[in-house]
């Protein structure tokens, strides 16, 4: 058996977390208190097992799979089982160089998040929920069946909803509902798109077509048939339908990403969410949007992508610039970081809209790099809140004095996020800029498109540095920080937090100095997908 995905990577975290939750929910509060430590340890061990598995996959210990030279629409660890045969629904899993980095990232962030939020309250239910979140996220990235994809897509909402609702801040009820309803509504549009796609396909042609419907939910088979259909001026499903479906799917993904103007659920969710929730939300959940774009609309509807290139570029630019400007105007530390995510997700959209393999590789690497950096940003925010009981920038100055570890972590994370060279984020940014300029000069776009990214390079530095000036620095004669707060001495971050920060910092440096570890497979994959889609680009699209 070569199926290393279904049971170990997806079913195991989901089922074990549900078992733990069921076990805990029947216990009395007192017993629950006693269960925190063993459950926490179990969740950590389980998540570490997942990490060992995916890391082993990278180093070819499991199944001897190489992540290079994966052809477009070809998947490693591919496995497919009939699920609802009559409808053409199969349990199909597999990974390529698009999904594997995301899966690894999820399994990497799970233990880090558990360690970083080691002392979270109600731990007996909190840690299993994180584990469940991880399982659902992995499920999204490995599904190769539209139905399955949608199920996991929505499944991720449930643990996150409860994480915000139970462990969130003062306004958590509103934030949880807004988060759920907003993204769910968008997902419904996406679902309609998926179902339309299901019904519009040529009946009884695909191998895994259902006995009753004659149609299939299989992503690889749909992509294959689309690739065959998308030749020259032919549009798979026809031009109009392709454009409509593209928009429907993109609505779901753009809201999840999120892109301006669909971003306002994010700051609310982040500000109210607990640290662990924020770390997973920013680290992996946002990337579901970008992942979905690559997996479905880009692969299925390249003509429509070309058709909407300008729109995507505009949305990307607006996200990038607007996010950065709003960041500068924030007074709440966590909100600022949340908006910076919006700004960075703009980079992904721009990378896609460049229609260059380098731009797409930049987008993929940005997904990955942001997935490591943003959890650190939120871990810092969480620790700040925990220590100083406030999120207001400027409420507490001179942090370097009494919390040097926190101050150092903050400095590091902020610098990584603003794109300091030799840290992970820079690689994606410089690649995006090169690809963008290349596209501008190749396709004869106006050079004014360069103004947005240029402005943001400066603005990003401005909001991060300004916030550091008012938190880490100062605290001198006029703004002396108190030695105690509520009568208690303000301690530096705890050892588990230090450990988590060090791990995140280490990987940020690792992927900044040696980006090729992750970037090579992404570069290779984007070139493969480009070769797979090349027929239309040469013709200049519609």
């Amino acid at each position, binding site marked *: 058996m070569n199926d290393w995905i279904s049971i170990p990577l997806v079913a195991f975290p989901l089922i074990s977390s549900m078992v733990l939750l069921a076990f805990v929910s029947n216990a009395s509060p007192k017993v629950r208190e006693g269960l925190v430590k063993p459950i926490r340890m179990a969740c950590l061990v389980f998540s570490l097992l997942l990490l060992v598995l995916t890391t082993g996959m990278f180093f070819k210990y499991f199944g001897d799979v190489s992540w290079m030279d994966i052809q477009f629409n070809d998947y490693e660890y591919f496995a497919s089982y009939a699920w609802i045969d009559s409808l053409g629904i199969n349990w199909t899993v597999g990974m390529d160089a698009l999904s594997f980095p995301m899966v690894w990232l999820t399994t990497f962030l799970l233990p880090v998040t558990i360690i970083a939020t080691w002392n979270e309250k109600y731990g007996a239910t909190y840690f299993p929920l994180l584990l469940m979140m991880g399982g659902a996220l992995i499920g999204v990235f490995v599904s190769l069946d539209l139905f399955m994809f949608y199920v996991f897509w929505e499944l991720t909402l449930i643990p996150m909803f409860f994480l915000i609702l139970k462990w969130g801040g003062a306004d958590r009820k509103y934030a949880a509902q807004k988060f759920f309803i907003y993204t769910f509504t968008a997902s419904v549009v996406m679902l309609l798109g998926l179902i339309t796609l299901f019904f519009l396909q040529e009946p009884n042609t695909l191998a895994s077509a259902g006995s009753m419907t004659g149609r299939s939910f299989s992503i690889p088979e749909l992509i294959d048939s689309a690739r065959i259909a998308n030749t020259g001026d032919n549009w798979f499903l026809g031009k109009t339908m392709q454009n409509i479906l593209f928009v429907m799917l993109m609505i779901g993904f753009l809201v999840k990403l999120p892109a301006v103007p669909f971003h306002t659920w994010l700051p609310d969710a982040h500000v109210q969410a607990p640290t662990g929730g924020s770390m997973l939300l920013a680290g992996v959940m946002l990337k579901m949007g970008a992942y979905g774009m690559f997996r479905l609309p880009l692969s299925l509807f390249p003509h429509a992508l070309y058709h909407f290139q300008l729109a995507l570029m505009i949305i990307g630019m607006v996200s990038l610039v607007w996010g950065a400007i709003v960041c500068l105007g*924030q007074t709440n530390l966590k909100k600022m970081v949340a908006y910076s995510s919006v700004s960075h997700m703009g980079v992904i959209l721009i990378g896609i809209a460049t229609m260059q393999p380098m731009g797409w590789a930049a987008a993929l690497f940005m997904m990955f790099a942001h997935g490591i950096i943003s959890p650190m940003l939120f871990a810092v925010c969480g620790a700040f809140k925990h220590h100083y009981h406030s999120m207001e920038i400027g409420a507490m100055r*001179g942090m370097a004095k009494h919390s040097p570890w926190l101050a150092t972590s903050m400095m590091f994370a902020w610098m990584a996020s603003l794109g300091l060279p030799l840290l992970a984020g820079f690689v994606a940014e410089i690649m995006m800029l090169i690809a963008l300029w290349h596209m501008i000069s190749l396709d004869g776009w106006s050079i004014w498109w360069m103004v947005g990214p240029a402005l943001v390079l400066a603005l990003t530095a401005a909001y991060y540095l300004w916030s*550091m000036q008012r938190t880490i620095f100062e605290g001198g004669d006029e703004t002396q920080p108190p030695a105690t707060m509520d009568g208690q001495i303000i301690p530096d971050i705890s050892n588990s937090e230090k450990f988590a920060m060090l791990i995140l910092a280490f990987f940020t440096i690792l992927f900044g100095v040696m980006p090729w570890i992750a970037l090579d497979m992404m570069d290779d994959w984007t070139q493969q997908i480009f070769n797979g889609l090349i027929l239309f680009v040469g013709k200049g699209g519609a």
Partner: protein
Amino acid sequence: MASSSDVILDSDMVQYAPLIILLPMLAFPVILFLGRVFNKNPFWKNTLKEGGLIALPVMAASLIISLLLINDHIGGFAGIKDSMNLLWVNTAVWDGGALEPVTLGFGIYIDHVTVMLLFVASFLCLLINIFSVGYMNTDPINDNRNHRFYAEFVLFCSGMLGMVLADSFLWLFIFWEIMGLCSYLLIGFYYERPSAAYAAKKAFLTTRIGDVFLVIGLVMMWDIFGSLDYDVIFNAVEDKEFMAGVSSSTLQWALGMMFIGAVGKSAQFPLHVWLPDAMEGPTPVSALIHAATMVNAGLYLVARMFPFFGAEALSGDLVDLAFIIALIGGITAVMAAAIAFVQNDLKKVLAYSTMSQLAYIFTGLGCAMYLANTLDWHNDSESHYIVVVAFGAALFHLFNHAMAKGMLFMASGSVIHEVHHAHHHLHHHDDHVEGEHDDHHDDDFDAQSMENMGGLASKMPLTATAMLVGSASIMGLPLIGGFWSKEGIIANAWRVAQDDPRFLLPAMCVLIGAGMTGFYMSRMWLKTFAGKPNNEVAAHVGPTNTWIKIPLFTLTFVTLSAIIFAGMGFTHWAPDSEYAFMSEKGLVEGIVYEMEHAFANSDSFFFILTYVAIAIGAVLGPGIAMSLYGGNLAEGEKAKPWMKPVIRLNAWVYSRFNFNNSSIAESGLTRALEQRLYIDYYYDMAMLKIVAAFSKKSAEADSAVIDGTIKSIERGSQSLSSIVRSLTTGSARDYILMISVGTLAIFFFLWGVA
């Protein structure tokens, strides 16, 4: 594209070159971590000097490897390119028909420009490290946080050396940013001071604005050449066939964008505002980063552009950019010198002086670029000589300035250090409490103000000597240090001005600037070391410690022996093998040649120009300063014999020509200069009133308009659903009515369809 050229030399040493960068970079976490763990441990504190003695051998090793590498280079006198090229990013672009592979890699590239900067950087890093041990570890305010200083210090050195050795514009930029980070961290070393926090942010943001343009320049450059490697690009610009397909105006724009980056990093107008504030950092930081090395990065970048200007295919196409480079230099030279007139803070005078001298180098480079771009220097040997000497003069000034200014800052640091100690000794001797060392700012005493100094020549003889030699070098006093290069820059500016009248402006600026330099540097020395002590504190200053003396002595020696360097061919420091290092002439002949060239130029125009420049810079400027400041030392104080003539002359001029300058001192211009010409003020206002205000409004709009729309949709659907819900009355009568109406409707509908 172009293949690697045949002048590339195989050097055994080059395989160790990455160590020059790696050693300090690895020392960074080591010092930081050990410092965190062993803080307050006596061995760590006293024997290892809180990391200072870990940094020291590392920097020494870097220097030794650098020297061996330089030796290899001089022996072969050709470029060295490391064959090992680390592939960093491996991707592709779509070129409208096929996928073109793209690689971004790292390697080592060594040519004349590299060698100059490599020596300056590694040499000064080591010297200033020695100085730091004497300076940082003896000041109680730094106790238990020096590890942070040394860690950031070595990281900076790594960045600087990396920038110099890197083989592509991309890696130049990467290390450039690392330096920016260290500059930021070290300016904000005293993080608890709001002024330091502000200065750090200002420095990072101002240079960041330049960096944005630099990035755009890089990206444009990449698009033109398909690579950012020097090797590929410089071979491509010599390839006429390839260059025929390149738009020279696009290339000029790309280079111009990169030049803006250089303007930011080298603190030139209009991005100069950060440098004076950067003096908030500890003095070794000012000496190393903000005087001797990092600010030279911009110059290095411009010097790197030489092959573009020198390319035959681009002949005459880049003169506008050359003019802009020279003009920015000219403006900054005069502006910074003028502001330096009114500064009373010792370090601020030096900061403006740095700005002004860097501007000289920019002017020199701009003129050299112009000459390279217009003259047929590839074929005509006379033109060739002119270009090589013009470029060499600018780079030699960089060398001289780095040495002199590094020394001046260290000397000023030692003065401040001792003044501070004297103050401490006088005022806190009786009520000294352990742990209460916060006296850098516990009262209004300003140890950096020249108002609190005066007459220190006899108390700190070595420091005063170093300062005297350094000032003389910066002023361009004949025979000393900067004279040899500054004359060249002025002469070349005028040479170009004869050809292109636009250059008259920078040429005038550098000439006038020479006089202004003479004035403010003399003023600084006289106010600090000559005359009588201004107050009780200055009267009690004592000599300094050995760690500080070593680098001061070394650099005094280096500065005084500039003529030897000139004789060795430092003035021909262009990427060209014909003017080999000491190859044509021996050392003595070289020195004689330089002397002859400087003082007895065969061209009557340059002969006169030389003496005019000397008259302005070495007589007029210092003369006015002498008539206004200084005077004899206090009774019983004896200066060293070599300083006596200076002080005697000063006393004579002071007594003979002293005049009342209060009308000038109270004029509007002086006030404007004191306010730095209001430039900082308007920048701050623009930040606060426009950028910050706009972003605040945007943040409000984001929640009011964008989120508001979403909320109103939500409310709309809620009220809609409540209307629908109101139909659910719970009364059986209503339901029966609805069922019957519904049934009827379906019935009629089906009937209609049928």
